[in-house]
C-alpha cells in the first residue's frame, strides 16, 4: 500500500491494530457517508476550521512558504490546495452555492478516492504551521490537517507508525515500548557513561516518591539520544534537584495531538496527571520533544479532567533561567565545533521557546551560527508530526521534504569541514535528521541542546 492511484501513502495499521486503539474500521462502502457525518460534527465545533473553509482567498502566500511544496512541487502540497481537498467536500454539502452549482464553484462529491487523497496529503503535511504564520487572514491550515487526520482515524485509516505508538503508550506508558526494567537498565548505563566520560556521579532516580521534580524525557532518548538523557541527569544533579523519572509515563511525546485528539491525546494527559499525583511531585519538567511540548503546554489545561496542581515547564526554560541568574558555571569551549540551531517548529511557532534556546546555545558553544531564516520563521526538518515513515516510497519523500532544511544548514557553512553540529532539540527532528544529514551530505552531527549543556557544565 505505498501508493494509491499514483499518490504516495504511508503503510496503514491493520484492522486488528486499529482495534487495539479502540477504533472499529468502517467498511469501504460506508466510508464516504461516515466521513460526511464526522465532518459535519466537527465543523459545528471548531471555528478555526470553519474559518479555514470559508475565508481563504487563494492569495498563494502559503505556497512558497511550505517546505513540503518546495521539496515536492506537487500542487496538492500547497497548503491552501491541501485544505481544498476537504474544502471541496465542505462546499458541496455545507454551503448553498456548492449545493446549487457543484463543480462550477469547485465543489465535489465525497468518494473513496477523495478519502484516499486525504490520507496521502494530510500525511505529507508536517503540521509545522509556517503557512499559518504567513497567512494574511490568520488561517491555521494545521487545524485542517488535524481534522483530516481525525476523520481518517475514525474511519479506521491511520498510519501503522502512529497506531503502534498509540498502542505502546497505552500498554507501557511510552512510544518505544520500554518496560520498567529496560528503563532502569538504560539509566544505570547512562550513570556509568557519565562517570567514564565526565568523572561525575549522577543517579537517575525512577519512581522516587516525594520528589520535587518529575522529569518527562522522550522515550527515543533511551534508544538513540544518550547525550540528551545524560545532559538532563547532569543538569538536575548539578543544581541539586530532588527529581525523578516516572516509569508509567516515560514519554514526552503525545501522538494523540497528531492523529487522535479526542481519545489518545486526552488519555495520555490523564496518565501524566496520575503519575504526578502518585509520586507527590511539586513540578513537572518536560524533556526535548517538540510536538509533545506543544501538547503539554498548550493542551493539558483544557484536556485535564481535574485541576492541574503542578506547574509544567520545559527543561530549556529551567536551564535558561539559571543561566540568566548566573547560577550555572559553563565552559563554552567544551563545544568549540561550529554549530547551528534547527528550531523545532512547535517550540518557536507554538510555545515561545525561541529566546531561551538562544540564551542556552550562546552560553554553551563558541561558534554559533544562525540559519536564515530562523526562530519563528524557520523551516521544518521535514519529519514534523512524526511523518518518519521508512518504507521506500515514503522514505524518498522524506528526502524531498528535508531539502529546504538541507539548503539552510549548508548555507551556514557549519559542515564545511565535516565537523559541524546541527543542534535539533526535539526527538522527531533528531529521528528525521540523523539519516537526512547523510542523505544530503551535510558534514554535521545531530545533537540536542541539553546534550551541549551537559558537556559544558563545570563541576566543583
Amino acid at each position, binding site marked *: 500500500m505505498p501508493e494509491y492511484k499514483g499518490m504516495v501513502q504511508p503503510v496503514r495499521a491493520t484492522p486488528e491494530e486499529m482495534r487495539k486503539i479502540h477504533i472499529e474500521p468502517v467498511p469501504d462502502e460506508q466510508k464516504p457517508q461516515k466521513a460526511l457525518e464526522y465532518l459535519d460534527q466537527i465543523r459545528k465545533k471548531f471555528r478555526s476550521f470553519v474559518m479555514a473553509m470559508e475565508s481563504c482567498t487563494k492569495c498563494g502566500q502559503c505556497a512558497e512558504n511550505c517546505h513540503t511544496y518546495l521539496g515536492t512541487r506537487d500542487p496538492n502540497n500547497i497548503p491552501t490546495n491541501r485544505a481544498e481537498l476537504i474544502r471541496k467536500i465542505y462546499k458541496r454539502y455545507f454551503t448553498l452555492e456548492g449545493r446549487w452549482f457543484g463543480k462550477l464553484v469547485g465543489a465535489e462529491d465525497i468518494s473513496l478516492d477523495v478519502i484516499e487523497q486525504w490520507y496521502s496529503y494530510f500525511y505529507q503535511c508536517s503540521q509545522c504551521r509556517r503557512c499559518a504564520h504567513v497567512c494574511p487572514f490568520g488561517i491555521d491550515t494545521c487545524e485542517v490537517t488535524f481534522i483530516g487526520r481525525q476523520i481518517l482515524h475514525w474511519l479506521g485509516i491511520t498510519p501503522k507508525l502512529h497506531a503502534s*505508538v498509540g498502542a505502546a503508550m497505552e500498554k507501557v506508558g511510552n512510544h518505544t515500548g520500554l518496560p520498567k526494567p529496560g528503563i532502569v537498565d538504560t539509566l544505570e*548505563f547512562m550513570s556509568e557513561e557519565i562517570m567514564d566520560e565526565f568523572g561525575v556521579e549522577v543517579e537517575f532516580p525512577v519512581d522516587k516518591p516525594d520528589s520535587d521534580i518529575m522529569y518527562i524525557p522522550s522515550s*527515543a532518548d533511551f*534508544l538513540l539520544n*544518550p547525550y540528551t538523557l545524560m545532559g538532563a541527569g547532569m543538569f538536575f544533579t548539578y543544581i541539586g534537584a530532588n527529581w525523578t523519572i516516572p516509569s508509567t509515563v516515560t514519554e514526552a511525546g503525545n501522538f494523540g495531538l497528531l492523529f487522535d485528539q479526542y481519545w489518545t491525546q486526552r488519555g495520555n494527559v490523564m496518565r501524566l496527571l496520575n503519575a504526578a499525583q502518585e509520586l507527590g511531585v511539586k513540578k513537572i519538567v518536560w524533556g526535548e520533544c517538540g510536538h509533545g511540548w506543544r501538547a503539554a503546554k498548550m493542551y493539558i489545561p483544557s484536556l485535564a479532567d481535574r485541576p492541574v496542581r503542578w506547574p509544567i515547564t520545559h527543561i530549556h526554560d529551567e536551564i535558561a533561567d539559571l543561566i540568566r541568574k548566573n547560577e550555572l558555571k559553563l565552559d563554552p569551549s567544551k563545544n568549540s565545533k561550529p554549530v547551528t540551531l534547527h528550531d523545532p517548529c512547535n517550540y518557536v511557532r507554538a510555545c515561545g521557546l525561541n529566546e531561551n534556546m538562544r540564551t542556552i546555545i550562546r552560553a554553551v558553544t563558541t561558534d554559533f551560527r544562525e540559519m536564515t531564516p530562523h526562530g519563528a520563521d524557520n523551516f521544518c526538518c521535514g519529519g514534523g508530526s512524526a511523518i*518518519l515513515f521508512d518504507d521506500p516510497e515514503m522514505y524518498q519523500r522524506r528526502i524531498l521534504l528535508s531539502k529546504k532544511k538541507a539548503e539552510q544548514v549548508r548555507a551556514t557553512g557549519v559542515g564545511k569541514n565535516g565537523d559541524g553540529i546541527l543542534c535539533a532539540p526535539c526527538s522527531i527532528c533528531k529521528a528525521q535528521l540523523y539519516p537526512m544529514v547523510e542523505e544530503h551530505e551535510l558534514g554535521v552531527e545531530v545533537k540536542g541542546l541539553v546534550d551541549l549543556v551537559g558537556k559544558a557544565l563545570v563541576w566543583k
Partner: protein
Amino acid sequence: MPSTIINGVEIELDEDGFMIDPDLWNEDVARALAASEGIDELTEDHWKIINYLRDYFKQYHIAPMVRKLCKETGCSLKYIYDLFPSGPAKGACKLAGLPKPTGCV
C-alpha cells in the same frame, strides 16, 4: 500478510519484514532474513550482534540503547552499518527476530 516457510514452518512477517512472533526465531530464520536484507553470509560479528540483541531482549523485552549495543559488542556504529546496511534498528533487530522499533526512532 507476507510470510515465508523455513524448515517447514510458516513464519509470518509484517510489511517491513519483521517477525510477528519472535518465539519462532532460530538461526535458519536469521539466515533467511539476512538474504532479504541483501546480506550474503552471516559472519562471526553478525552473530555476536544478533546474539547480544536476543539476550538483551529476552531479559528486558526491548532493544538496548544503540550506544550500549556498540559498547557491549565492541562494534562501532559505522561497523554495524557495514554489517547490517539498514542499521542497528531496522537491520540487526530484524535479523534477531525483535519487533520493529516504534516511536521517534
